[in-house]
């Protein structure tokens, strides 16, 4: 008898169980909804639409952010219990010469990458804007690298940098009778060598944005300048660049954040000794990755991420301040 009952229950469609549990709350919700006014109904719709996204932002964005700060105040290697460490992780960072090396590397990527890439991109965009013959084709050539995968291109450039007989650059140098360069093998040349493909890949985006900015400058300014008989250089300095300021601010901040977070290129171009030689190319993100997922020092790594956050915040704020004022 009992066994039969149990069997009968199993035979029922699976949806029955689902409805038995969620049916009542849904009915309650709907009947409550029906008794609302039109205005209230819209608010209900708004919150219904927002429910899943809000859950997502709380669980996947806000909680992890808080967790990162919380972890940075602890010592934890994933196996043992978490131990309160106060600010000692930050003290340890400040006393670590590797960290200061990494910190300086990160800023080198920023200080070299942003100005160089923006000047090149602006020059290209400024002249490309005046070109009509095959404009679209040339623009596509400059834009193409932006669509490549950083990992794939890091390996291509790594191949370029190899010593003879493999590397393209050293082969060209040999043809020209110039001394061979160590590139990725030297502590002084490695960082610019890693930076080059990152600049190369981002250039297309900056050119496209500059082109759009140039196009947005009203024609009448140029006409007025022409009537006044102003030279081209003056027009560039007095009209084009000031009116392009919103675009410039956006690109400076956007690309700076990109260079401060450089990782893919460094990781792939120095896989035999990540961040090498002698940490000379190691950026902050690589140090974080290494501390967290090779060293399993979660608290210490979290402290480094807090430093990264502060660096990004301070650099962006300073840039916005300086560029907006001028």
């Amino acid at each position, binding site marked *: 008898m009992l066994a039969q009952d149990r069997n009968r229950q199993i035979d029922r469609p699976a949806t029955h169980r689902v409805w038995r549990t969620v049916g009542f709350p849904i009915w309650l919700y709907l009947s409550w909804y029906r008794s609302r006014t039109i205005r209230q109904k*819209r608010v209900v719709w708004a919150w219904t*639409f*927002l429910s*899943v*996204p809000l859950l997502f*932002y709380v669980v*996947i*964005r*806000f*909680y*992890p*952010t808080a*967790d*990162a700060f919380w972890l940075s105040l602890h010592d934890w290697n994933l196996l043992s219990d978490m131990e309160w460490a106060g600010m000692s992780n930050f003290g340890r960072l400040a006393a670590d010469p590797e960290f200061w090396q990494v910190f300086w590397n990160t800023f080198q990527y920023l200080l070299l990458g942003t100005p160089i890439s923006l000047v090149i991109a602006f020059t*290209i965009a400024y002249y490309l804007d*005046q*070109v009509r013959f095959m*404009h*679209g084709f*040339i*623009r596509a*050539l*400059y834009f*193409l690298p932006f669509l*490549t*995968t950083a*990992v*794939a*291109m890091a390996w*291509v*450039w790594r*191949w*370029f940098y*190899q010593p003879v*007989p*493999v590397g393209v650059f050293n082969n060209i140098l040999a043809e020209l009778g110039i001394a061979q360069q160590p590139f990725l093998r030297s502590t002084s040349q490695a960082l610019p060598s890693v930076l080059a493909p990152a600049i*190369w890949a981002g250039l*297309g985006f900056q050119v496209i*944005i500059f*082109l*759009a900015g140039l*196009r*947005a400058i009203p024609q009448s300014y*140029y*006409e007025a300048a022409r009537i006044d008989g102003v030279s081209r250089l003056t027009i560039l300095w007095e009209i084009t660049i000031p009116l392009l300021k919103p*675009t410039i601010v*956006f690109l400076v901040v956007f690309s700076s954040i990109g260079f401060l*977070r450089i*990782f*893919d290129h460094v*990781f*792939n171009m120095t*896989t035999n000794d990540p961040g090498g030689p002698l940490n000379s190319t190691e950026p902050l*993100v690589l140090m974080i*990755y290494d501390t*967290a997922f090779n060293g399993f020092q979660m608290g210490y790594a*979290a402290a480094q*991420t807090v430093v990264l956050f502060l660096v*990004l*915040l301070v650099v962006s704020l300073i840039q916005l301040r300086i560029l907006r004022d001028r």
Partner: protein
Amino acid sequence: MTATLDAAGRLGAGEGGTARFFRTPIRPGRIVMWTLLFLGGITMVMPIVFMLSTSLKYPHEVFDLSLIPQEPTLENYIYVLEDGRFFRWFINSLLIATATTLSCVFFDSLVGYVLCKFKFRGRYIIFIAILSTLMIPTEMLVIPWYLMAQSFGWLDTYWGIMFPGMMTAFGTFLMKQFFETVPDDFLEAARIDGMNEFQIWWSIAMPLVTPALSALAIFIFLGNWTAFIWPLIVTTDSNLYTLPVGLTTFSVEQQIDWELIMTGASLATIPTLLVFLFFQRYIIRGVVLAGLKG
């Protein structure tokens, strides 16, 4: 920001900017300028061309710098694809990028729409809260995400790779900006016709912002297709690697067989290049829209 595209939303050549003002008869200076720009453009694509040409070469030809292989061969591609893993990684990347893009396009525009068109208490706070997540770098969240994935058993699953990117604050902000351009009258008319709010959003508001949706989709897809650090952290099973992570592993294995590494790199690059060739205009417009409004 103030970017004006022409009526068709294109960035056509010479419609504005300095172009018309400087339009002059062909002079030697202009020819030099054009040639320099053209050569610059060719230099820009050289790494890609070198990669593709080397992937078609036999090992003994790799050290030869000529761009056109003397005896082109698909040997490398056959070798790499026979391995089977590349195909798997390709499918993984495609699945993950597609699923994330669909989710982002759906939820980002939904949230953007709600924040733009609905008036209710707490709207402003929610907007600021979502926007503030833009200030948090992904790298800061990877450790908590990893711990979360570990405790929920999401390591080495598709969901584990995808979950951090299912919605973006950037997309929400972008879509909110674009829904501002949709007149309230349209929505009101639909409401009087008896459509519910979901139908209004889906069948009235969404079709009016398709340029923005495609811009967002391009950006999100590209971002996920090339994403590296998070898939690298969350996957240890080679069957679940995405293309970039797989390519790293593969390249490290090959060590000095550059023609094979170039083949792998080509396989990771060719799909996006093909898509670009077909949808060039939309992609460039999308990047401009997303870049300037976002």
